[in-house]
Every structure is written in C-alpha cells, then in structure tokens.
C-alpha cells in the first residue's frame, strides 16, 4: 500500500476493527492526564468494543449508510503534534481539538459554567456512559475507549446561563477526531449549548458521542450544527436524558460532509419531562446524510415532539428513520413525530421511515412522513412577481423549513436562520 505512509509505531489499521488493546487504551489515558478511574473506564469500554460486531447493513438503522465509509483511517490512540488554528468568537466558546485539553475563551471562563477535560476527575465515571453506554453500538464503543477530544460541561444547580456556550468541535483534513461531550445540567439550571462541528476536509473522519443530562427541573437547549467541509465523513451519537420536570430542546442542523450519519435521541426519564427536537438537513450535490431520531419514554406523564425536515437537491440522498418508543411503565405520555421531505431535483432522493413502539395504553402518539417534489407552480408564481428562479427556489425551501425554525426560541432561531441562508446560497450552482 503506497497511499498510506506509516511509521513503525502506528501500524496501519484493519479498517474493519480498530486495534484497541486495553493496555494501549490505558497508556493513552495517562498521556492525556486522565484520572485513574478514567483509565479504567476506557479499558472496560475497550473490552466491550471487542465484543461488538461491525455494523451490518441488513440491520435497518444501517440500511442507508455504508459503515465502511465511516471507519477511522489511521491509528487511533495518538496525540497529534500539531493542530490547525481556529478562531473563537468573543461570546462564550470553547475550542475542542484532538489530544488537547478544551480551550475556553475568557467569556466561557466568566460564564459560571464549568468546562474542563472529561475523565480528569474520578467522579466523572458516575456520569459518563449514562445516556450513551459503551455498548450502544460499534462506533459508540470505539469512541468510549478511544475518544481524543473530550469535554465536560457542568451547569451548576440553579445557574441561569444568559449567553449560549459554543463548543467548537474542530475536524481536520486527514485526521480521525473522536470528540466526546458530556453536559450535566444540574437541578433547575438553564443553559444553551451549541455544538458546532466545523472544519474537516479530505480524509477527515469524526466519530462523536454527546451525552446531555438534564437534571430535575433543568431547562437545557442544545444545538447541533454539523457543517463539515466536503470530504469529511462522520458519525455522531447524541442522547439527552431528561429527569423529572426537566425540559430539553434539541435543534439539529445537519449540513456538511460527504457521508454523515447521526443518531439523535431523547430519553424521558422522569414524570413531567419534556423533549422537543427539531431538525433541518439540506443535502446537495452527492452528499449522503442519514439521521435517526429516537424518543424513548421510560416514565409516565412525559411529552415529546420531533419535527424533522429535509430538502434534498442535486444527486444527494437523505435518510430519516424516527422511532417513538413508549415503555410499559410510561402511561399518560404524549409523543409526536413528523418528517417532511422536499425534493428539489429529479435525482434527489429521500427515504423516510417513522416507527412507533407503544408498550402501554393511555398514550397519545402520532407520526407522519411525506416526500414530495417542489411544486413548479410555486416557482412560477414567484417568478411572475419578478423574483428570479434560483431566488424563488431558495425562498420556497426557506419557507419549507421556516415553521420548523419557528419552534426554536429567538436568539437560537436567528442563528439557525443564518446557517440555513448560508447553506441555501450554495444551492444556486446545484439546481
């Protein structure tokens, strides 16, 4: 193999199973300066990883994405010598890069939110793995054992964070990044965390896991922005666990990368818990974007809603699978889910599979899925008012996602709208 330059220490990987020997994992943990319990936790995860088979495409969650395209390309468990510089805004922000401790800016430090490297305290193992255990799946186990860009975010009890905290998750061309985020929103706290997956390029691979724990009566907003550059591939797993009377709002803007799969979910774990997820994806050119959402009600008197929209253009493909699961001990729950797809070109494709698993009575559930081509009469109508066809197309797509964005509170909505605009500007050339 002439295409991958390897030195003596980094053996080229079998792309189907990364080498995660427990002693290597422990050594990596020490290199990163983690607490002893942290090293143990990673080692157990490595053992779990060894027992999990590579995802099989016959399993329906993997029907639409080839897992082989998401496999890390290089040796894991290494600390890169150099990382690309990234600018942070003046608002509270933290730079998360492989092999480096999280780098908060001054505003983040002043925010009253604790931000530090994950697994640097023994107590972290009480929280890590709660919402996404190592045995969640192949990529999640790999991440648990080998994550190289970890951050813990703790919003103290009753703390109200005025400004959103932005986690800048920097992917890099030719590099495997395994970010892991643990957000602990303590009782009655309020905060917004923006996870901004940016950077990347040819050969960039990202295997990420995010756990969000919304404590009793906490109000946690989370925005996942995925705007990797072309050439990037990745898999992101998110779970929010919402305790009694807690509220979670998850907004997903899944835009970037050549092949990207995201497994996003909320677990309604205490009475009165609410979870709302909205998603917008706008795959174009030859992108393959695959989103799975899950709302699992493990407690009664809980409420969830999902509104996911995909506008697909060029030769892109979008896949959406959405599962609502109401456990047997979760009566008086409400769960709603809607997925709408707009096809902007003849070669664009969207799959949509909504599923319900209801194991108890007395619940109120609905789900819906639609896929339709853009209506040429809408474009003509707008054109007849002087608006050029490409602009008309963007207006219609913007209108398609607008009611979804409307469900997001003010400041965040403006940010999402801007991201959508930025993204739509790309449509011009691809119609």
């Amino acid at each position, binding site marked *: 193999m002439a295409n991958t330059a390897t030195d003596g220490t980094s053996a080229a990987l079998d792309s189907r199973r990364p080498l995660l020997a427990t002693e290597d994992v422990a050594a990596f943990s020490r290199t990163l300066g983690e607490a002893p319990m942290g090293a143990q936790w990673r080692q157990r995860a490595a053992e779990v990883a060894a027992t999990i088979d590579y995802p099989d495409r016959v399993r329906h969650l993997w029907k639409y994405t080839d897992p082989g395209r998401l496999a890390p390309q290089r040796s894991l468990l290494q600390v890169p010598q150099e990382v690309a510089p990234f600018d942070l805004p003046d608002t509270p922000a933290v730079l998360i890069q492989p092999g480096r401790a999280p780098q908060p800016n001054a505003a983040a430090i002043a925010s009253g939110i604790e931000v530090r490297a994950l697994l640097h305290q023994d107590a972290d193992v009480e929280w890590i793995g709660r919402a996404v255990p190592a045995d969640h799946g192949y990529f999640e186990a790999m991440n648990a054992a080998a994550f190289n860009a970890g951050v813990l975010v703790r919003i103290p009890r009753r703390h109200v964070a005025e400004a959103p905290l932005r986690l800048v998750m920097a992917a890099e061309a030719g590099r495997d990044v395994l970010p892991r985020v643990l957000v602990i929103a303590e009782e009655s706290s309020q905060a917004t965390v923006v996870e901004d997956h940016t950077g990347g390029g040819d050969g960039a691979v990202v295997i990420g896991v995010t756990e969000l724990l919304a404590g009793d009566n906490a109000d946690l907003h989370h925005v996942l922005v995925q705007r990797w550059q072309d050439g990037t591939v990745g898999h992101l797993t998110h779970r929010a666990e919402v305790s009694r009377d807690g509220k979670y709002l998850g907004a997903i803007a899944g835009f970037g990368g050549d092949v990207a799969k995201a497994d996003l979910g909320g677990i309604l774990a205490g009475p009165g818990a609410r979870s709302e997820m909205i998603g917008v994806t706008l795959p174009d050119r030859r992108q393959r974007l695959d989103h799975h959402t899950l709302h699992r009600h493990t407690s009664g008197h809980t409420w969830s809603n999902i509104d996911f929209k995909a506008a697909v253009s060029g030769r892109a493909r979008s896949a959406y699978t959405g599962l609502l699961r109401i456990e047997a001990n979760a009566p008086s729950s409400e769960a709603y889910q809607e997925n709408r797809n707009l096809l902007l070109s003849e070669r664009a494709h969207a799959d949509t599979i909504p599923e319900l698993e209801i194991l108890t009575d007395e619940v109120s559930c609905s789900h819906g899925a639609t896929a339709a081509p853009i*209506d*040429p*009469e*809408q474009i*003509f*109508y*707008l*054109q*007849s*008012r*002087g*608006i*050029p*066809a490409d*602009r*008309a197309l963007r*207006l*219609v797509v*913007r*209108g*398609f*996602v*607008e*009611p979804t964005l409307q469900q997001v509170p003010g400041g965040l909505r403006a940010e999402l709208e801007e991201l959508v605009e930025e993204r739509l500007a790309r449509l011009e050339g691809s119609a």
Partner: protein
Amino acid sequence: MSDSRNTPIFSCHDVHVSVEGKEIVKGVDLEVGAGEKHALMGPNGSGKSTLAAALMGHPGLEVTGRIELAGEDISELEADERARLGLFLGFQYPVAVPGVTVASFLRAAMSARQGRDVPVKEFRLKMQAAFEALGVPRDFAGRYLNDGFSGGEKKRLEIMQMALLEPRMALLDETDSGLDIDALKIVSAGVNEATGSETGVLMVTHYQRILDYIKPDVVHVFMDGRIVRTGGPELAHELEERGYDWLADTTTASAGG
C-alpha cells in the same frame, strides 16, 4: 418606430400554446394600447388561463409567436424578466407558498420590480396603504403567502400586489370570480386606481358583472383557443343575453384573423 403613440403597450401575434404536445391556444393576436382595458370572455376550458400563463412566460408551456411589451420583444424572456419589465399576471388560482410571509414576499417582489432594495420603512408605509385600500386586515403581513386564505382574500391580495408593483400591462385572470359584491366593488376600484392612463389591462372573465365596475374599451370572445370575435362593450351584453353558442359557428370562419 415612427410615433410612440401608435405603439401598443402590449401585443402578441400568432401565439400558439401547447401542453404536452396538445395545442390549446391556436393562434392569438392582441393589441392593447396604453390606458386601454380589454376583456377576454369565453367558456370554461377554452384556454384563457393557458393563454395568460403563456403570455407571462410559464416555463412548462410550449409557446410560439411574438409577444411585445412597450415595443420590446419579450417572447424569449423568463417570467421574472417579463415581470421586472412591467408585465403582471393576476392568477385565477393564486399559489400558496407556506413559510414565506406576505410581507417578505411583497418586499422581495417590489425590490425586484424596482431594481433596488426597497427600504423597510418605505415598504411598510406602501404596504399598509395598499392593505387599507383593498380592505385587507393588517395581520396578513405576517401570514404565509396565500396559505389558508379564502378565495376572496387571495384575489384581494393579487390586486394589492398589482398596486404595489405598478405594472405597465396587467393580465387579470378571473380576478372577479369568487368575490361577493362588496369585495368586487373594492377590488374593481383597486384595479381602476392602479391602472391609469399608462397601463394596459386584459381582464379574463366569465361574467358580465365585473364589467359594470371596470369598463372595458374592447371585448374579445375566446373559444376553443381562438379569439372568435372582437367588439365594444356592447358585445359583453350580447354574450350575457345569448350565451356563447351563437358564436360557435364562427369559430372556424374567423380563424384566419
């Protein structure tokens, strides 16, 4: 180009329109002078809307013939280019565009027509004046375009758009249908107001009724893809009394024009 007064504001010559290979408009000639109002009347399915959409530049129609706006050949232009030059189509069935508010749409349309970014303040004043003139409630500004509007509300909004866009030539496709008499009076006043001595109007309609409020200078009878007769306002009354059947025989006779 000897005398600009002799140049009609709008004309078309030998316009044929086909949909999926089927000819629906079979050779139409029209000349509308500045300030003139023409009525185009004809039975259901005769091709009136198809003609209007073709003149506006619908991309899904196969159109031949020559179309001119103020002496300029617009036959090859896209619909949006025609609109920016001052052609307007009031739709028989205005299309809903969910998620796009009336206000943001109107501002985009006005900016396109005027070739400049219309400032928010100026736009708001104009929009509110137009809302008032056509009896459209103010909260329409924030509603999604034609989404869940009643038939009459949509028609008012069409004429409101015409007023804001100040076209040189307005094609109004059954702007009167679906309106009660009060709404009809308001909409007609709106049309009369917006179309002074410079604007040409082609009103497509089934009914004599609107012609009591918008007085046509010329009436065309349109049947089976052709104009079979052209006359003055009295022709509309004749149609009202006698229907279209008596003209059916003349369809072939006057086809040559």
